[in-house]
């Protein structure tokens, strides 16, 4: 099992609110192998971004373990954690608000190099900045430009260069292409894939876009109200969804194939509040297969076939949507 880079065990993150405890992430466990991508999908408020951030301790998890290369990073001191961040980085969703508008492209990329004291000589730093710009496809001409002069795609490239500056092994990509147009989105996805191969990176890819995650991820985890409801290799999940929520989610993807009429599953209602959650299956009130036992207790995530995990008392048997 030495090829597992990151192991997350029973990760929980609760937020205190005036109305009660908000269970953003409620006992999530998974492993990621080195050089692979785990896609985390789900709708707004399901806790997918909080999961990504909790793993990096950008928000301090309430409980659980995050084991990175054999070390539980939740036990590290603040100082040790700073050093650890050299190994684990994040790319944010919004390239419009995640870059300091007063810094130039080169200053932005230089920042992590200086903080982590990767180089001390100015020449080395400059050389590395130019190298990184080249790596992410930013022309040298933009060295002294400011973010506001650039479009979303180029800004996202800066975000990627910043993350790569410290030679991390692991990157959380938090909706890295959601704010971009389709043609630019494809450019950035291709770049991230190339970089993964070149630098042997391991990704967590958080997104709400199912077609993107299908293309990008090796394994896909589906989250609903703070819990993993299903996890399987991408092809398996799309061909053979076992959880009714996954099935509904997949059926809702608008398809460009005008010949093939898909069967749509329109879910009733909306995601319920993650405050004061029921102690039965969280999807029960929207599920069309719901039975009495679904309202009695909460299903656990179990492996029903090799590498295919599902948290449902009545997993689906029939064919998937593809």
């Amino acid at each position, binding site marked *: 099992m030495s090829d597992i880079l990151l192991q997350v065990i029973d990760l929980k993150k609760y937020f205190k609110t005036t109305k009660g405890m908000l269970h953003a992430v409620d006992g999530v466990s998974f492993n990621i192998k080195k050089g692979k991508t785990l896609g985390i999908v789900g*709708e707004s408020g399901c806790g997918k971004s909080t999961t990504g951030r909790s793993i990096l301790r950008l928000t301090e998890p309430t409980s659980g373990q995050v084991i990175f290369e054999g070390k539980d990073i939740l036990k590290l001191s603040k100082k040790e954690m700073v050093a650890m961040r050299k190994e684990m980085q994040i790319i944010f969703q919004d390239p419009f608000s995640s870059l300091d508008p007063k810094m130039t492209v080169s200053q932005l990329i230089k920042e992590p190099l200086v903080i982590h004291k990767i180089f001390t000589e100015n020449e080395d730093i400059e050389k590395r900045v130019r190298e990184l710009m080249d790596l992410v496809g930013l022309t040298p001409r933009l060295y002294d430009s400011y973010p506001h002069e650039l479009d979303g795609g180029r800004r996202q490239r800066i975000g990627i260069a910043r993350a790569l500056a410290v030679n991390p092994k692991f990157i959380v990509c938090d909706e890295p292409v959601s704010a971009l147009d*389709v043609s*630019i989105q*494809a450019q950035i996805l291709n770049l991230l894939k190339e970089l993964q191969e070149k630098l042997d990176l391991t990704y967590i890819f958080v997104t709400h876009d*199912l077609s993107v995650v299908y*293309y990008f991820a090796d394994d896909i985890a589906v989250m609903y109200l703070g819990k993993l409801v299903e996890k399987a290799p991408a092809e398996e999940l799309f061909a053979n969804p076992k959880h009714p929520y996954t099935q509904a989610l997949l059926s809702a*993807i*608008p398809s460009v194939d005008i010949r093939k009429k898909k069967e749509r599953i*329109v879910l009733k209602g*909306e995601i319920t509040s993650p405050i004061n959650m029921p102690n039965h299956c969280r999807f029960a009130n929207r599920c069309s297969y719901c039975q009495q036992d679904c309202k009695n207790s909460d299903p656990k995530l179990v492996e029903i076939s090799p590498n295919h995990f599902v948290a449902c008392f009545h997993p689906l048997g029939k064919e998937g949507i593809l």
Partner: protein
Amino acid sequence: MEIFKRKKKTVQQPKAFEGEYVLDVEDLKIRYETDDAVVYAVNGIDLKLKRKQTLGLVGETGAGKTSTVLALLKLIPTPPGVVEAKKILVNGKDVMALSDKQLQQIRGNEIAMVFQDPMTSLDPVYTVGEQIAESYMIHDKLSKKEALEEAKKMLEIVGIPAERSGEFPYQFSGGMKQRVVIAIALACRPNILIADEPTTALDVTIQLQVLELMKQLNEKYQTSTIMITHDLGIVAETCDEVAVMYAGQIVEKGTLEDVFENTKHPYTEGLFNSLPNMNDRNSKLNPIKGLIPDPTIVFTGCPFAERCRYAKEKCFKQKPTVKHLSESHQVKCLRYDEADFKIERSLK
């Protein structure tokens, strides 16, 4: 006690318009004259919408989609905007020639708009009931009480319980707010509905609910719709006809089958090839190189030439004109009928 009971007014039936095209736009040009430069947002487009049809207006940020539809309602702020057109006919009426008062009669009543972001298009200090009722009070001249009653009916139609009409927008989720926005737009039974990215801010399962609702309502009220979107999947789901916009021009237009199965413009091809292939996970994405052009540039040739993988020298020098492939299908490309020109689209 009410002695003289006023005769109760009800809302009117859908406004009948007998012409073939509810919208007829010819050679629409929109530019914004700012202190720094002139931005050419829309550069001469023709647009026709048949009754009960849904037209998808597709393109990326800055293609001029929103400017185009705002011009239909005469909502382009002037200055800095300058709108020129041979004609803009809405239900046969020339929008350019109407007074503000006449325009107010058309807006909401005959042509209504659903905006992209339901979080900001509702007024936070009025209840949703009041916001829907406003349309009835202005256009159908109902009293406030009657209008609020109608508003409740409308809420039920878009799938929100009537008893929530006294609540404020912040008490609703994103999908519910978009339903309210749709209720406002459809309140006066317009025969043209413009939906500007109506589901972009919503989750997929909620997006599906909203699209299904719009489909049902279009059927029920026989509305013609312009659907602005960047998502080709949504176009495939909802539209009868498609117009692909690039740099303020319509580069390809036709029925859904024309554009999706017989793609002719390299930009349309690029949009399709940028999407992940749902049939083959391992095929590489094939994005369009480069970026959309600066809208302050006036092109001598084809605006797409510099990003086009088929471009030849003439594409940079000569402006393409509209070429008709069939009665419904048209394309704006210089090379579309040349022997060595073949669109490569992986089927998804």
